[in-house]
């Protein structure tokens, strides 16, 4: 077993364990902190795939922005969830069973694919070709329309988020 495989196994186990703790821990703040560890593990998995750019973007966007946003929301809505209050529904075993069955189905279905055991070899020099990626995003023959639609969507989502969360003066009284 090569060194990279050992790194992968350790990172994958940490990621999955912290993912489990996200859904299993009682205190909301703890699950938010476990979520950060899990996202960091995913970033390292991107790194092992030679996708260094996406590893950095993962750290910037998910750990830097999204998890901070989640922690802000937790602090703004904190006291509703008492810490001894169970965080999961009563019949939690049914979703657990469904998740296990789905995992079995997914794994069994993927194992029927011929190239399932294919090895991921090291890509040649300049694996990510970031200049080509950036050029394709603004190329009319490439992906300029999805790119612009995504930017408008992001702008609309942020304006909408401010509008939804803002105080309404007429309802305050």
């Amino acid at each position, binding site marked *: 077993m090569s060194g990279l495989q050992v790194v992968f196994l350790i990172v994958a186990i940490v990621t999955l364990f912290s993912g489990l703790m996200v859904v299993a821990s009682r205190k909301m703040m703890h699950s938010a902190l476990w979520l950060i560890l899990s996202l960091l593990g995913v970033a390292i998995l991107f790194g092992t795939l*030679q996708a260094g750019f996406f590893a950095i973007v993962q750290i910037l*966007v998910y750990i830097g922005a999204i998890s901070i946003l989640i922690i802000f929301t*937790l602090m703004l809505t904190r006291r509703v969830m008492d810490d001894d209050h169970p965080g999961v529904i009563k019949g939690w075993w049914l979703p657990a069973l469904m998740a296990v069955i789905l995992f079995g189905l997914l794994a069994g279905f993927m194992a029927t694919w011929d190239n399932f055991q294919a090895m*991921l070899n*090291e890509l040649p020099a300049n694996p990510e070709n970031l200049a080509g990626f950036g050029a394709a995003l603004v190329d009319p023959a490439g992906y300029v329309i999805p*790119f612009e639609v995504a930017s408008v969507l992001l702008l609309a989502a942020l304006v909408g988020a401010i509008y*939804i969360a803002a105080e309404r003066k007429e309802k305050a009284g």
Partner: protein
Amino acid sequence: MIPLSWYLIAAAALFCIGLFGVLSRKNAVSILMSIELMLNAVNINLVAFWHYHSQIQGVSQVAPQVFVAMVFIIAAAEVAVGLALIISAYKRRETSVVDEMTLLKG
């Protein structure tokens, strides 16, 4: 090097953990966190297939990278709107537990 199957199995496991969280947690913020886990599992798959595809073709492929970037953008938009909705509902009802969010019942 690492087999493709390891990434697919790890991503499937992370996706199922996220699915369990979405279906079983009570707090809306927890549900959003579980959705983030599911989106990340999908992204692992996409990046793994980007690597596999680039390896087969011999040159770096752009389309999977654009796909991954779109997932990042959608995730950011989704979490911003979702958390704003939770804060708005919390202001009206003093709760972020989804069972008690009955604003649409009239």
